[in-house]
């Protein structure tokens, strides 16, 4: 039966694998100080930003690329990557009419018609979108509506120009460039990304969203996201990712920093659907991302919710530093791997403040020949009185050629801590499938139902619009994976 499944899988295509024919304005391949100066100049950056980049670069060249036990891949050649690629009609567009029609078509294919979003602007549930294609932020919607509330939501590049004091204050404060190999690389060469600031006492009235797309061949995407929620504010932020099919691997190394001030809450949701490579494991995105949030002050809260279905190799651990007393960190994750995909993902919860609480719910689903690892660290520092953590890591296997691994690390330096860890591994049951079929539900739909049921606790955390998309994605990425 397994063979039939595989042969079915062969006929599937990655739905988002189209290339947009837009003239790109590229930097020469390779990486050295001149390239960094080129990027900085292109972006018309102030001196301090160039200095930061160079500092990061000089640090990066002293590092060695890390290696992990459960992930194996051909390491990217960092001198064979284009570090800057801008779709030619440039950034500062005021209305949609000025956007390249090819680009608009791309968005439509991605299922995010901006036109639609505009039409929806009268409706209560709205999404403001910042679209980052290759390296440049193309269009931020709803800017005016947001600015009435004092909310800043713009491209990172724009923030550097318009709000340098905020960027200077917060950038590097959660993920220093010295953090790891990819964070250092990103700090040196990042080209754009999103910036968001929610002022004191403001509840952001709509979902903020960034769509990332890698388009040009041989480019790397290194975006930075910086999100600050000031006292008593709330924001829900969504991130979506796609890339065209290519047979070489492309590198994505992002940095995301979140800062929550007193009583503030940040909900950060990701639906990651980068091109996973073909069924033989050729091509696909290498996704090496550093995501971290800090609950800087008392009673703040940060939640990461992620649905990861794409990328050839994923390496990411959205983390929370629980510094403020009574602060709360959450991590809800679904990671699906199929064919030859590899995922090593998890979270770190660093408890520093008193009465801090964290929850980790991780659902791994492996199919085909894939490997799916959960790696999580819960650290309770000395003096973090009455800290609590609850972790639940479940793995679901489809077929017998895939792997699931769980690596929970727990470090407790305070005796008052209460840490609970639960883990399960199960196989998708033939019995469950037959039960569904005996009620008239076919294999694909049955898998969809069972998998969505399995992931329910996580999917429930996503905003409505995304939950539906995520459910479909789960079903699509597992199509034909069980007989």
């Amino acid at each position, binding site marked *: 039966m397994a063979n039939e499944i595989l042969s079915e899988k062969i006929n599937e295509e990655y739905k988002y694998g189209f290339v947009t024919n837009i003239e790109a304005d590229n930097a020469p391949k390779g990486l050295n100080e001149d390239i960094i100066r080129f990027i900085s100049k292109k972006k018309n950056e102030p001196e301090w930003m160039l200095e930061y980049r160079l500092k990061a670069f000089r640090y990066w060249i002293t590092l060695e690329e890390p290696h992990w036990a459960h992930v194996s891949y051909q390491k990217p050649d960092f001198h064979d990557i284009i570090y800057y690629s801008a779709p030619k009609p440039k950034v500062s567009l005021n209305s949609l009419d000025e956007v390249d029609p090819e680009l608009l078509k791309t968005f439509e294919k991605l299922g995010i018609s901006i036109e639609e979003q505009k039409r929806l602007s009268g409706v209560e549930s709205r999404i403001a979108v910042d679209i980052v294609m290759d390296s440049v932020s193309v269009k931020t919607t709803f800017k005016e509506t947001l600015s009435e509330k004092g909310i800043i939501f713009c491209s990172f590049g724009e923030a550097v120009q318009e709000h340098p004091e905020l960027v200077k204050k917060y950038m590097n404060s959660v993920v220093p460039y010295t953090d790891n190999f990819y964070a250092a690389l990103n700090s040196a060469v990042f080209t754009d990304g999103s910036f968001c600031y929610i002022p004191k006492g403001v509840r952001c009235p709509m979902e903020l969203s960034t769509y990332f797309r890698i388009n040009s061949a041989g480019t790397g995407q290194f975006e930075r996201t910086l999100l600050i929620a000031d006292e008593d504010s709330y924001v829900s932020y969504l991130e979506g990712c796609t890339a065209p099919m290519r047979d070489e691997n492309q590198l994505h190394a992002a940095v995301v920093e979140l800062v929550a001030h007193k009583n503030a809450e940040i909900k950060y949701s990701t639906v990651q659907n980068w091109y996973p490579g073909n069924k033989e494991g050729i091509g696909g995105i290498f996704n090496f991302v550093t995501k971290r949030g800090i609950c800087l002050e008392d009673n703040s809260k940060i939640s990461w919710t992620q649905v990861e279905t794409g990328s050839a190799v994923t390496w990411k651990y959205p983390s929370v530093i629980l510094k403020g007393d009574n602060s709360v960190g959450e991590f809800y994750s679904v990671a699906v791997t199929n064919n030859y995909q590899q995922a090593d993902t998890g979270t770190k919860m660093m408890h520093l403040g008193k009465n801090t609480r964290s929850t980790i719910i991780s659902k791994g689903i492996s199919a085909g020949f894939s490997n799916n690892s959960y790696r999580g660290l819960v650290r309770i520092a000395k003096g973090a009185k009455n800290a609590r953590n609850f972790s639940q890591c479940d793995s679901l296997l489809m077929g017998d050629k895939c792997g699931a691994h769980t690596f929970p690390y727990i470090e407790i330096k305070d005796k008052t801590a209460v840490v609970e860890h639960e883990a399960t591994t199960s196989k998708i049951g033939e019995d*469950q499938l037959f039960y569904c*079929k*005996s*009620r008239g539900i076919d294999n694909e739909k049955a898998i969809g*139902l069972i998998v*969505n*049921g399995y*992931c329910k606790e996580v999917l429930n955390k996503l905003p409505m619009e995304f939950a539906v998309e995520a459910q479909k994605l789960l079903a699509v990425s597992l199509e034909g994976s069980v007989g």
Partner: protein
Amino acid sequence: MLSIKNLHASIGGKEILKGINLEIKAGEVHAIMGPNGSGKSTLSAVLAGKEDYDVTEGEVIFNGKNLLELSPEDRAREGIFLAFQYPVEIPGVSNVNFLKTAINEIRAYKGLEPMAAKDFLARLKEKQKLVELDGKLANRSVNEGFSGGEKKRNEIFQMAMLEPKLAILDETDSGLDIDALRIVADGVNKLKSNDNATVVITHYQRLLDYIIPDVVHVLYNGKIVKTGPKELALELEEKGYDFIKAEAAV
């Protein structure tokens, strides 16, 4: 409606069904009894299309169609329903969502539009009442954490919702308390019509006091060794299976 001729089926090379013959007409209720391990559940699973079994010989015609050529889901869409002896739990999937999906899949097969939400809710309410199913159970995940009896009752609820042509109840009575038994039997009787048929697999005459069968079959060692009127069930209750075994041995 259903015609089984010389059906042989095996699992892992071991033959379990050794030549079953059975004719069921619309409007009829058939009871199948027989000692443990005689092949009753195997027969229901083979009819429902469980892939683990190999049908090595024989044919099954259901409403003019060769049932054995159909996938399990298509059999269900054609109107076969199996109430499982051991209902399966599907965590995170609500009963309501499960049934909505099933109904719409069956409708799609027949070229019908998905059922309107309002009609679905109306049916849900009606059938819930029919089998006196606690409203809370309908909203919980399919069978997850249900008691044994609740699972059985949920099977009948699903049957009521899906309105099958041929329902096979595999020991739906076991594990039910007296009241539940009556409710389930009432439900089955109310759903009975001239165009559907029911196969009741049971070990106990008791259920057949409520659901009166037209015919009783005794399955033993993979074969139907005796067929008779409803009184046969009484005789079995009284004498046990020994006399059947003795007869079969001759």
